């Protein structure tokens, strides 16, 4: 069976910067895929090309076998939320949905239906400028649901959501997938989506780093330990002095290979370096993500 989404050798250059570099993957029906990578990895650029908003420099992205722009009434097949900022502040949430719906002949009543679905019906007539960030995320989701699509594409949907909002979104997406729909959800962190997705694509510097199921990723004998310190450079040197393989993430976290948390703690203690975080095998998922997406420190 052909994938619902097929991305082939997708490349996007902005001048000399290669934002997306020869990326290929496909999505099967009924899967929830996490599209992961650090900020700037090329996730949003990939999604923009997938949705016909940006033109690939090379390669192609197909949804339901066609480039997005060739789909007839695409919102009936693909629902997408790219950012929580695509609203006119002086327009009500309901008018926003009606305006989008009318453009492809979706009746106004459907706008009220999706507003109930995302639990925004109480704020339907209020202007978007009075909406919280979480409400805007849900309004974006409502617009993606207008056409009752088979595929949902969500770009960083948990950004700015409070824990309750994240939980609400997770439950919502699970219910959606149980209904046989396909979901592609991008995030800069694995933790945000680990409980939602069953498959992950990890990209870094525009290239595909890992494509696997969540189980494969967690069961891989990775054994890396994630640690943080208020003095990351000193810790890095202390660990390297012990001939450990250490990779450094942009936020200062270190992923250490081939050592137990006990040994790392002892090394840090001996060097007098305070640790603020030390997480072992239990969250090797995060360690794997960190290792796969961080720069190899030189």
């Amino acid at each position, binding site marked *: 069976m052909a994938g619902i989404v097929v991305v082939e050798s997708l490349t996007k250059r902005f001048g000399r910067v290669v934002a997306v570099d020869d990326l290929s993957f496909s999505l099967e029906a009924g899967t929830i895929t996490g599209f992961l990578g650090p900020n700037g990895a090329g996730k949003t650029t990939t999604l*923009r090309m997938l*949705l*016909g*908003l*940006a*033109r690939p420099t090379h390669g192609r992205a197909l949804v339901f076998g066609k480039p*997005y*722009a060739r*789909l007839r009434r*695409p*919102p009936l097949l*693909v629902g*997408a939320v*790219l*950012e929580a*900022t*695509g*609203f*006119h*502040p*002086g*327009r*009500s949430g309901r*008018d*926003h949905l*009606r*305006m*989008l*719906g*009318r*453009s*492809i*002949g979706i009746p106004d009543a459907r706008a009220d239906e999706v507003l109930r679905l995302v639990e925004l019906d109480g704020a339907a007539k209020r202007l978007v400028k009075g909406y919280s960030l979480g409400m805007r995320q849900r309004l974006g989701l409502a*617009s993606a649901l207008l056409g009752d699509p088979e595929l949902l594409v969500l770009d960083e949907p948990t950004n700015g959501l409070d824990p309750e909002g994240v939980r609400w979104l997770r439950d919502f997406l699970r219910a959606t997938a149980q209904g046989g729909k396909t979901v592609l959800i991008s995030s800069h962190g694995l933790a945000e989506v680990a409980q939602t997705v069953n498959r992950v694509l990890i990209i870094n510097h525009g290239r595909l780093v890992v494509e696997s199921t969540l189980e494969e990723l967690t069961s891989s004998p990775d054994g890396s330990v994630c640690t943080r310190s208020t003095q990351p450079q000193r810790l890095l040197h202390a660990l390297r002095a012990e001939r450990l393989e250490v990779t450094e993430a942009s936020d200062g976290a270190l992923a250490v290979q081939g050592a137990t948390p006990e040994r790392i703690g002892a090394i840090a203690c001996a060097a007098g370096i305070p640790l603020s975080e030390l997480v072992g095998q239990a969250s090797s998922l995060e360690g794997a993500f960190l290792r796969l997406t961080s720069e190899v420190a030189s």
Partner: protein
Amino acid sequence: MIGLMRAESLKIRSTRTTLGLLAGMTALVVLVVVLTGVFAKSSDLIGTSNQLSLLSYGSFAIVFAGLAGVLLVTSEYRYGTIRPTLLFNPSRARVLIAKLVASFLAGIIFSVVAEGAGLIAGLLILTARGLPLTLSGGDIGLLIGGTIAGTALWAALGVGLGSLIRNQVGALIVLLSWIFVVEPLVFAFVPSVGRWFPGQAVNALTGLASAHLLAPAAAAAVLVLWASSLAVAGNALMARTDVS
């Protein structure tokens, strides 16, 4: 396509900006007509050309309709609504055509409101001062028809300009400085060039008497050409440009 036009029309109506533009326009037209009509000497309000200019202040509508047209495109980029708009309708050319049609129709409403208010205020002042109307029915017909056509085309012209200069502030500055600085200056000093400009074309369309203005039919053609050239250029640019 009809659905897309309905959507664009709802876009114009569903924010208070349009209402604000209509209110500001009407207030300005009435104010200028009243000030002119009250303070002008009676002898100055008898002549047909002076009466025509008193009753033609409704053509201020071109500024406001042009602004509405510019805003219909540039607010999409300013607030990012261009993303959902294009996700729902990936053909940028169709979106642009729908905006041109919707703004053209909005321009008709702008002009009817403005010219209606200006005409009523002007006629009331002439009546109150006991001055006879020296304009013919044909003059007034041309004034009304020209204002409506000119304003509708200016709204479409605003859409074309907005699609070329998608930065909202930039587009508004270009539009306003064109209307209030560039055109008046060029027309004053080099009328043979200035008369081909879209603002002067509206003056010609409404029948304002000037040796330098084009004939009304030619002015209509010039306006259509301006609006369509900007739209074609904007369409070419939008087709090539990625949406972030």
